[in-house]
């Protein structure tokens, strides 16, 4: 059983890029600041902002669950390792 306080990588998928002159990275950092105790940029691994909207961050299970209910979030799921075929 995993420790719910243990951080693991989650993908937070937010769909298409927002319209207009918006800093997507700032949105991602802002969302993390609301739920992470500590420095948000320390847990952010990737900010997807060129072709679609989302980010990858090291989160606890509780933090991931909080993000699931946020407006603008399509899905939050733990990162998996895929295999070569």
């Amino acid at each position: 059983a995993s420790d719910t306080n243990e951080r693991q990588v989650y993908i937070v998928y937010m769909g298409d890029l927002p319209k207009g002159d918006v800093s997507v990275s700032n949105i991602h950092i802002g969302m993390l600041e609301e739920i992470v105790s500590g420095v948000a940029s320390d847990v952010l691994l990737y900010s997807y902002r060129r072709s679609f909207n989302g980010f990858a961050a090291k989160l606890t299970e509780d933090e991931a669950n909080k993000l699931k209910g946020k407006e603008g979030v399509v899905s939050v799921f733990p990162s998996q390792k895929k295999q070569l075929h």
Partner: protein
Amino acid sequence: TSRTWEFMGFNKKMKTSIIESDIIIGMLDTGVWPESESFNDTGFGPIPKKWKGTCQKSANFTCNNKIIGARYYLTDGDNGPEDFISPRDAEGHGTHTTSTAAGGLVSQASLFGIAKGTVRGGVPSSRIAVYKICWSYGCSDEGILAAFDDAIADGVDIISLSVGSFIPFDYFEDSIAIGAFHAMKKGILTSNSAGNSGPTPGSVVNVSPWSLTVAASTIDRKFVTKVKLGNGQIYEGATINTFDLKGKMYPFIYGGDAPNLTLGVASEFSRYCFPGALNATLVKGKIVFCEYFTDYEGVLEAGALGAVFQDTGNKDFQFSYPLPFSTLNVNDGRMIINYLNTTENPTATIFKTSQDNNQFAPFVVSFSSRGPNPITTDILKPDLTAPGVDILAAWSEASTVTEDDTRRTRYNIISGTSMSCPHATGAAAYVKSFHPTWSPAAIRSALMTTAIPMTSNNNIEGEHAYGAGHINPLQATDPGLVYDAGEIDYVKFLCGQGYTIANIQLISGNSSSCSEETDGTVWDLNYPSFALSSTPGKSITRVFHRTVTNVGSAVSNYRAVVNAPPGLIIQVQPSVLSFEYVGQQQSFVVTVGAELGNSMISGSLIWDDGVHQVKSPIVAYAS
């Protein structure tokens, strides 16, 4: 690829597009070995103006006019000590897939003389953009998404991705499906491997309806490794043996006669040649016969010169080994045991692998993942099949031929849906080079409707193994009609699949709405195949609405030709489609009724104008 593209009709006289060198293939894989001759940029002009990517700076990697872009995505815990922290390929897989899709022509390529010939990609004049997402410990979702994010924005034309999970995930909890969706929105087709978990039913992965899912099949070449006994008998085995014993006969010993007594191993176990089971003193310098396929570690560590294994498994693909090695079927294994038991000083030799004709090709290889589609049961997946068995292609010189091997090579022979996927990628790029404005769905349709039909004679899973059939890239440039689809069609599909309006609006980035009028049923997604499932023993009827776009002759009449075996009723309305100009669309309705027992029934619909045969499989099955 020293045979695969020729097997599909590619030759020196084939037509090529003058814009092939503007096509950019995005390879999401383990990176590439840039010094490979397959990526030589001699004769290439400047980088296409549409390219917006970069060559990520690193000490041991530079791009050229063939490899025009390269990036890598590394997070903690992904890499091992052997990995290069750069787009350079330490593993071999990415070099192999990239050269298969887009490598240049290299003559006299082989694996130590085996499969010698000219290797090539489907679009040898195309450009390559490398996105290294896979490392020693796998390919993380966050890296895959980062690569998609970049590749789409960089301006690639096709994305090739030969990785996946062991189990399928919901479309928007799957990094590959998410990336492929946004690629589709920008007009980029994603070509995916179907997985190597076959022949288990429902094992296919990467099944999003906006991507191309590729199974793996054989070509008309097979490799044979002969074993000769001291009595002159010769048996045909199934491995890739790169070692040449030059016909010299060596002492031959039964594993059961060489138990490692110091470890307390009995003859009943040493006959299987498990690691630690063999007496090194007795087997050193000899060829060992083992009664069960347990891989090579046991004989290698005991110092055997070579090994012959009896194998009950599938023989439709081959592995290489770090010592002379062949596997024989059970009947031949019995003959060997009889020889060993009745001969005072038994001897044998293992010949270097030779090639033979595979008269049953193409058929889908046993390991290729099978449908039914586990996420959307009424969309047929895999979409089609392509060569993926015993493929010779470029290799990383940082990697050995096999594990436990010290030999490095510039070309290697491996199998997988990883190998079939880049063949389909190359074929898709080839089509795109003639039709640069075609959508991802149109390119997929062209590949599917022109596929060479296959039969269930060699694959009992039928369309669940091979989809529409075997790719036929030359014909795919002239499909006659295409089943096109764009973002709005997939949005309707997602509505029909029960995704919330809020999520669909986020995904699409617009104010799309779901309603009874706009919700698309699965059966109405404008897909070039037809699938319907029900519970065993039930009869079902489904109505499919489709629209085709004329991309053939301006004035043409297509007649519906239906193939419906007993138990399947297929009606098409109207049964004739008339076109007056290129780009004209015509709609029709297919009603399929099926009396299902416990398995599947399949037929087909062909739109035929006398020149083009636009083929679609129709599959009804008990789910």
